[in-house]
Protein backbone atom coordinates (compact mmCIF):
# COMPACT_ATOMS: atom_id res chain seq x y z
CA UNK A 1 0.00 0.00 0.00
CA UNK A 2 1.44 3.35 -1.04
CA UNK A 3 0.13 6.92 -1.15
CA UNK A 4 -1.09 6.41 -4.72
CA UNK A 5 -2.26 2.80 -4.53
CA UNK A 6 -5.99 3.36 -3.95
CA UNK A 7 -7.72 5.55 -6.51
CA UNK A 8 -10.10 7.48 -4.25
CA UNK A 9 -9.99 11.15 -3.28
CA UNK A 10 -9.90 10.32 0.44
CA UNK A 11 -7.09 7.76 0.33
CA UNK A 12 -4.10 10.20 0.43
CA UNK A 13 -5.70 11.92 3.43
CA UNK A 14 -6.26 8.58 5.18
CA UNK A 15 -2.64 7.69 4.35
CA UNK A 16 -1.41 10.99 5.83
CA UNK A 17 -3.54 10.47 8.97
CA UNK A 18 -2.32 6.89 9.46
CA UNK A 19 1.36 7.31 8.54
CA UNK A 20 1.60 10.93 9.75
CA UNK A 21 -0.74 12.10 12.47
CA UNK A 22 -1.15 8.71 14.16
CA UNK A 23 2.67 8.36 14.30
CA UNK A 24 3.36 11.84 15.73
CA UNK A 25 0.52 12.95 18.02
CA UNK A 26 0.74 9.92 20.38
CA UNK A 27 4.34 10.92 21.23
CA UNK A 28 3.10 14.37 22.23
CA UNK A 29 0.22 12.91 24.27
CA UNK A 30 2.67 10.56 25.97
CA UNK A 31 4.64 13.63 27.06
CA UNK A 32 1.56 15.10 28.77
CA UNK A 33 0.73 11.72 30.32
CA UNK A 34 4.23 11.14 31.66
CA UNK A 35 4.41 14.61 33.17
CA UNK A 36 7.63 14.79 35.15
CA UNK A 37 8.43 11.07 34.92
CA UNK A 38 11.09 11.21 32.21
CA UNK A 39 14.21 13.39 32.08
CA UNK A 40 15.89 15.05 29.10
CA UNK A 41 19.24 13.44 29.94
CA UNK A 42 17.97 9.88 30.09
CA UNK A 43 20.32 7.44 28.32
CA UNK A 44 17.66 5.89 26.05
CA UNK A 45 16.96 9.36 24.61
CA UNK A 46 20.53 9.49 23.25
CA UNK A 47 19.66 6.47 21.04
CA UNK A 48 16.25 7.95 20.14
CA UNK A 49 17.81 11.25 19.07
CA UNK A 50 20.59 9.47 17.13
CA UNK A 51 18.08 7.39 15.11
CA UNK A 52 15.84 10.41 14.43
CA UNK A 53 18.84 12.50 13.34
CA UNK A 54 20.16 9.77 11.01
CA UNK A 55 16.67 9.37 9.46
CA UNK A 56 16.35 13.05 8.62
CA UNK A 57 19.99 13.20 7.48
CA UNK A 58 19.20 10.34 5.07
CA UNK A 59 16.38 12.42 3.54
CA UNK A 60 18.84 15.32 3.15
CA UNK A 61 21.45 13.06 1.53
CA UNK A 62 18.85 11.73 -0.92
CA UNK A 63 17.67 15.26 -1.75
CA UNK A 64 21.22 16.37 -2.61
CA UNK A 65 22.12 13.20 -4.54
CA UNK A 66 18.79 12.45 -6.28
CA UNK A 67 16.63 15.62 -6.40
CA UNK A 68 13.38 15.61 -8.38
CA UNK A 69 12.05 18.47 -10.52
CA UNK A 70 14.11 21.38 -11.90
CA UNK A 71 17.03 20.75 -9.50
CA UNK A 72 17.60 17.37 -11.19
CA UNK A 73 19.01 19.30 -14.19
CA UNK A 74 21.93 20.60 -12.11
CA UNK A 75 25.17 18.71 -11.40
CA UNK A 76 25.82 16.77 -8.20
CA UNK A 77 29.02 18.80 -7.74
CA UNK A 78 27.09 22.09 -7.65
CA UNK A 79 24.45 20.77 -5.20
CA UNK A 80 27.02 19.23 -2.85
CA UNK A 81 29.38 22.21 -3.00
CA UNK A 82 26.56 24.72 -2.32
CA UNK A 83 25.35 22.73 0.69
CA UNK A 84 28.89 22.27 2.04
CA UNK A 85 29.69 25.99 1.62
CA UNK A 86 26.42 26.96 3.35
CA UNK A 87 27.17 24.62 6.22
CA UNK A 88 30.74 25.99 6.49
CA UNK A 89 29.36 29.55 6.66
CA UNK A 90 26.97 28.44 9.43
CA UNK A 91 29.70 26.55 11.28
CA UNK A 92 32.47 29.15 11.20
CA UNK A 93 30.52 32.43 11.24
CA UNK A 94 28.54 32.36 14.47
CA UNK A 95 26.18 29.37 13.93
CA UNK A 96 23.41 31.41 12.25
CA UNK A 97 20.89 29.17 10.44
CA UNK A 98 19.78 31.98 8.10
CA UNK A 99 23.37 32.72 7.07
CA UNK A 100 23.88 29.07 6.11
CA UNK A 101 20.72 29.10 3.98
CA UNK A 102 21.59 32.41 2.25
CA UNK A 103 25.19 31.40 1.42
CA UNK A 104 24.12 27.99 0.05
CA UNK A 105 21.41 29.56 -2.14
CA UNK A 106 23.73 32.35 -3.39
CA UNK A 107 26.41 29.89 -4.48
CA UNK A 108 23.81 27.59 -6.03
CA UNK A 109 22.26 30.49 -7.95
CA UNK A 110 25.67 31.65 -9.23
CA UNK A 111 26.62 28.12 -10.29
CA UNK A 112 23.23 27.69 -11.98
CA UNK A 113 23.87 30.76 -14.16
CA UNK A 114 27.38 29.55 -14.97
CA UNK A 115 25.82 26.33 -16.26
CA UNK A 116 26.88 23.77 -13.61
Amino acid sequence: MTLGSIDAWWWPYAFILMAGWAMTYPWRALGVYLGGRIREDEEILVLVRAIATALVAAVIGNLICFPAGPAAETTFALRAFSAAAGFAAYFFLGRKVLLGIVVAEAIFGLGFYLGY
Partner: protein
Amino acid sequence: MPDDAVLPSFADRRRWFLRGAAKVASVPGFILCTAHIGFADLARQAELTVAQAVFMVGAIWALPGMVVLVGAVLSGAGLFAVAFAVALSSVRLTPMVVALVPELRGTRTSKLTLYLLAHFVAVTSWVIAMETVRNVPRDLRTSYYFGLGSTLILVNMVVVAIVFAVAAALPPVVAAGLFLLTPMYFLTSLWGSAREQAAHIAMVLGLVLGPLLHLFAPGFDLLGAGLIGGGLAYAAHLMKDRPA
Protein backbone atom coordinates in the same frame (compact mmCIF):
# COMPACT_ATOMS: atom_id res chain seq x y z
CA MET B 1 -9.88 25.14 50.32
CA PRO B 2 -8.19 28.56 50.13
CA ASP B 3 -8.53 29.98 46.66
CA ASP B 4 -7.04 33.41 46.16
CA ALA B 5 -6.37 33.02 42.44
CA VAL B 6 -8.60 35.26 40.35
CA LEU B 7 -9.83 33.71 37.10
CA PRO B 8 -8.31 35.61 34.17
CA SER B 9 -10.90 37.57 32.20
CA PHE B 10 -11.61 36.89 28.54
CA ALA B 11 -9.95 40.22 27.66
CA ASP B 12 -6.77 39.11 29.48
CA ARG B 13 -6.82 35.78 27.68
CA ARG B 14 -7.31 37.47 24.30
CA ARG B 15 -4.48 39.94 24.98
CA TRP B 16 -2.00 37.15 25.80
CA PHE B 17 -3.27 34.99 22.91
CA LEU B 18 -2.41 37.89 20.57
CA ARG B 19 0.98 38.42 22.19
CA GLY B 20 1.74 34.74 21.58
CA ALA B 21 0.53 35.06 17.98
CA ALA B 22 2.80 38.11 17.45
CA LYS B 23 5.87 35.97 18.29
CA VAL B 24 5.50 34.41 14.83
CA ALA B 25 7.21 37.57 13.52
CA SER B 26 10.61 36.58 14.87
CA VAL B 27 13.83 35.10 13.48
CA PRO B 28 12.85 31.49 14.40
CA GLY B 29 9.39 32.14 12.91
CA PHE B 30 10.92 33.42 9.66
CA ILE B 31 13.31 30.47 9.43
CA LEU B 32 10.39 28.08 9.89
CA CYS B 33 8.59 29.77 6.97
CA THR B 34 11.62 29.25 4.70
CA ALA B 35 11.69 25.61 5.81
CA HIS B 36 8.02 25.27 4.82
CA ILE B 37 8.77 26.81 1.41
CA GLY B 38 11.27 23.97 1.01
CA PHE B 39 8.71 21.43 2.24
CA ALA B 40 6.10 22.68 -0.25
CA ASP B 41 8.64 22.27 -3.06
CA LEU B 42 9.43 18.73 -1.86
CA ALA B 43 5.71 17.89 -1.73
CA ARG B 44 5.29 19.18 -5.31
CA GLN B 45 8.12 16.93 -6.53
CA ALA B 46 6.34 13.99 -4.83
CA GLU B 47 3.20 14.97 -6.78
CA LEU B 48 1.07 15.73 -3.74
CA THR B 49 -1.79 18.16 -4.31
CA VAL B 50 -1.87 21.53 -2.56
CA ALA B 51 -4.75 20.32 -0.34
CA GLN B 52 -2.80 17.22 0.68
CA ALA B 53 0.34 19.24 1.48
CA VAL B 54 -1.58 21.83 3.52
CA PHE B 55 -3.41 18.98 5.31
CA MET B 56 -0.03 17.43 6.20
CA VAL B 57 1.15 20.68 7.81
CA GLY B 58 -1.95 20.85 10.01
CA ALA B 59 -2.17 17.14 10.82
CA ILE B 60 1.49 16.33 11.50
CA TRP B 61 3.09 19.68 12.40
CA ALA B 62 6.60 18.32 12.80
CA LEU B 63 8.90 19.00 9.84
CA PRO B 64 11.18 15.97 10.36
CA GLY B 65 8.12 13.67 10.29
CA MET B 66 6.75 15.53 7.25
CA VAL B 67 9.95 15.37 5.18
CA VAL B 68 10.49 11.74 6.20
CA LEU B 69 6.92 10.95 5.07
CA VAL B 70 7.33 12.70 1.72
CA GLY B 71 10.89 11.35 1.32
CA ALA B 72 9.61 7.81 1.92
CA VAL B 73 6.76 8.35 -0.57
CA LEU B 74 9.38 9.49 -3.13
CA SER B 75 11.36 6.31 -2.42
CA GLY B 76 8.23 4.22 -3.07
CA ALA B 77 7.94 2.87 0.48
CA GLY B 78 4.67 1.25 1.62
CA LEU B 79 2.34 2.38 4.39
CA PHE B 80 3.96 0.41 7.22
CA ALA B 81 7.54 1.34 6.36
CA VAL B 82 6.52 5.01 6.02
CA ALA B 83 4.60 4.93 9.32
CA PHE B 84 7.49 3.26 11.14
CA ALA B 85 9.99 5.83 9.81
CA VAL B 86 7.72 8.74 10.77
CA ALA B 87 7.22 7.28 14.26
CA LEU B 88 11.00 6.89 14.75
CA SER B 89 11.61 10.46 13.62
CA SER B 90 9.02 11.81 16.06
CA VAL B 91 9.88 10.12 19.38
CA ARG B 92 11.85 13.24 20.30
CA LEU B 93 8.51 15.09 20.70
CA THR B 94 7.83 13.27 23.99
CA PRO B 95 10.71 14.75 26.04
CA MET B 96 9.99 18.18 24.55
CA VAL B 97 6.37 18.06 25.79
CA VAL B 98 7.55 16.73 29.15
CA ALA B 99 9.83 19.76 29.54
CA LEU B 100 7.20 22.27 28.39
CA VAL B 101 4.15 21.08 30.40
CA PRO B 102 5.35 22.25 33.85
CA GLU B 103 6.03 25.71 32.32
CA LEU B 104 2.54 25.97 30.80
CA ARG B 105 0.43 24.52 33.59
CA GLY B 106 -1.53 27.09 35.63
CA THR B 107 -3.44 26.58 38.86
CA ARG B 108 -6.58 25.41 37.09
CA THR B 109 -5.29 24.04 33.80
CA SER B 110 -7.22 20.93 32.77
CA LYS B 111 -5.56 17.84 31.30
CA LEU B 112 -7.72 18.29 28.20
CA THR B 113 -6.23 21.77 27.57
CA LEU B 114 -2.73 20.29 27.82
CA TYR B 115 -3.57 17.41 25.45
CA LEU B 116 -4.91 19.94 22.91
CA LEU B 117 -1.92 22.28 23.25
CA ALA B 118 0.48 19.32 22.88
CA HIS B 119 -0.41 19.18 19.17
CA PHE B 120 1.35 22.55 18.70
CA VAL B 121 4.65 21.33 20.15
CA ALA B 122 7.40 21.27 17.51
CA VAL B 123 10.89 22.71 17.57
CA THR B 124 10.13 26.36 16.75
CA SER B 125 7.18 26.96 19.08
CA TRP B 126 8.98 24.98 21.78
CA VAL B 127 12.14 27.11 21.56
CA ILE B 128 10.14 30.37 21.59
CA ALA B 129 7.97 29.21 24.49
CA MET B 130 10.84 27.93 26.63
CA GLU B 131 12.56 31.33 26.20
CA THR B 132 9.59 33.64 26.72
CA VAL B 133 6.91 31.89 28.78
CA ARG B 134 8.46 32.85 32.12
CA ASN B 135 7.48 36.48 31.36
CA VAL B 136 3.81 35.50 31.03
CA PRO B 137 1.50 35.40 34.09
CA ARG B 138 1.13 31.73 35.02
CA ASP B 139 -2.65 31.49 34.59
CA LEU B 140 -2.39 33.02 31.09
CA ARG B 141 0.41 30.83 29.74
CA THR B 142 -1.96 28.37 28.03
CA SER B 143 -3.64 31.29 26.18
CA TYR B 144 -0.21 32.60 25.17
CA TYR B 145 0.96 29.22 23.85
CA PHE B 146 -2.36 28.63 22.08
CA GLY B 147 -1.88 31.94 20.24
CA LEU B 148 1.74 31.15 19.36
CA GLY B 149 1.15 27.55 18.25
CA SER B 150 -2.07 28.02 16.31
CA THR B 151 -0.76 31.10 14.46
CA LEU B 152 2.49 29.33 13.51
CA ILE B 153 0.50 26.43 12.02
CA LEU B 154 -1.93 28.71 10.14
CA VAL B 155 0.81 30.96 8.72
CA ASN B 156 2.79 27.97 7.49
CA MET B 157 -0.30 26.33 5.94
CA VAL B 158 -0.77 29.58 3.99
CA VAL B 159 2.94 29.64 3.05
CA VAL B 160 2.67 26.11 1.61
CA ALA B 161 -0.48 27.04 -0.35
CA ILE B 162 1.24 30.16 -1.77
CA VAL B 163 4.27 28.17 -2.93
CA PHE B 164 1.97 25.75 -4.80
CA ALA B 165 0.16 28.72 -6.38
CA VAL B 166 3.26 30.58 -7.62
CA ALA B 167 5.72 27.70 -8.23
CA ALA B 168 4.92 27.34 -11.93
CA ALA B 169 5.62 31.06 -12.55
CA LEU B 170 9.01 31.15 -10.81
CA PRO B 171 12.21 31.85 -12.80
CA PRO B 172 14.15 28.58 -13.38
CA VAL B 173 16.99 29.48 -10.99
CA VAL B 174 14.55 30.10 -8.10
CA ALA B 175 12.49 26.98 -8.91
CA ALA B 176 15.67 24.88 -8.87
CA GLY B 177 17.05 26.59 -5.77
CA LEU B 178 14.01 25.82 -3.62
CA PHE B 179 15.15 22.22 -3.20
CA LEU B 180 18.18 23.42 -1.14
CA LEU B 181 16.01 24.98 1.61
CA THR B 182 15.14 21.68 3.26
CA PRO B 183 18.72 20.32 3.36
CA MET B 184 20.13 23.62 4.64
CA TYR B 185 17.44 24.04 7.32
CA PHE B 186 18.08 20.56 8.70
CA LEU B 187 21.88 20.52 8.25
CA THR B 188 22.19 23.67 10.36
CA SER B 189 19.36 23.24 12.87
CA LEU B 190 20.05 19.54 13.55
CA TRP B 191 23.73 20.27 14.07
CA GLY B 192 22.97 23.18 16.38
CA SER B 193 20.35 21.38 18.46
CA ALA B 194 22.46 18.23 19.02
CA ARG B 195 23.04 17.64 22.73
CA GLU B 196 25.77 15.07 22.38
CA GLN B 197 28.38 13.94 19.87
CA ALA B 198 26.28 10.86 19.01
CA ALA B 199 23.82 13.09 17.14
CA HIS B 200 26.64 14.63 15.07
CA ILE B 201 27.97 11.15 14.17
CA ALA B 202 24.41 10.03 13.34
CA MET B 203 23.97 13.02 11.03
CA VAL B 204 27.15 12.29 9.04
CA LEU B 205 26.31 8.56 8.81
CA GLY B 206 22.73 9.29 7.73
CA LEU B 207 23.92 11.67 4.98
CA VAL B 208 26.11 8.92 3.48
CA LEU B 209 23.93 5.85 4.20
CA GLY B 210 20.71 7.38 2.84
CA PRO B 211 21.92 7.75 -0.77
CA LEU B 212 23.94 4.48 -0.61
CA LEU B 213 20.94 2.43 0.53
CA HIS B 214 18.76 4.29 -1.97
CA LEU B 215 20.87 2.73 -4.74
CA PHE B 216 20.81 -0.80 -3.33
CA ALA B 217 17.59 -1.04 -1.31
CA PRO B 218 15.15 1.74 -2.30
CA GLY B 219 12.08 1.69 -0.06
CA PHE B 220 14.27 0.67 2.89
CA ASP B 221 16.77 3.54 2.50
CA LEU B 222 15.44 5.89 5.18
CA LEU B 223 14.63 3.26 7.80
CA GLY B 224 17.90 1.45 7.13
CA ALA B 225 19.97 4.63 7.35
CA GLY B 226 18.13 5.67 10.53
CA LEU B 227 18.51 2.35 12.33
CA ILE B 228 22.08 1.57 11.16
CA GLY B 229 23.39 5.15 11.40
CA GLY B 230 21.64 5.85 14.70
CA GLY B 231 22.70 2.47 16.11
CA LEU B 232 26.36 2.96 15.16
CA ALA B 233 26.35 6.51 16.57
CA TYR B 234 24.91 5.18 19.83
CA ALA B 235 27.55 2.42 19.91
CA ALA B 236 30.25 5.10 19.55
CA HIS B 237 28.60 7.00 22.40
CA LEU B 238 28.74 3.89 24.63
CA MET B 239 32.40 3.20 23.72
CA LYS B 240 33.40 6.74 24.62
CA ASP B 241 31.97 6.47 28.13
CA ARG B 242 33.82 3.24 28.79
CA PRO B 243 37.39 3.55 30.15
CA ALA B 244 39.89 2.25 27.58
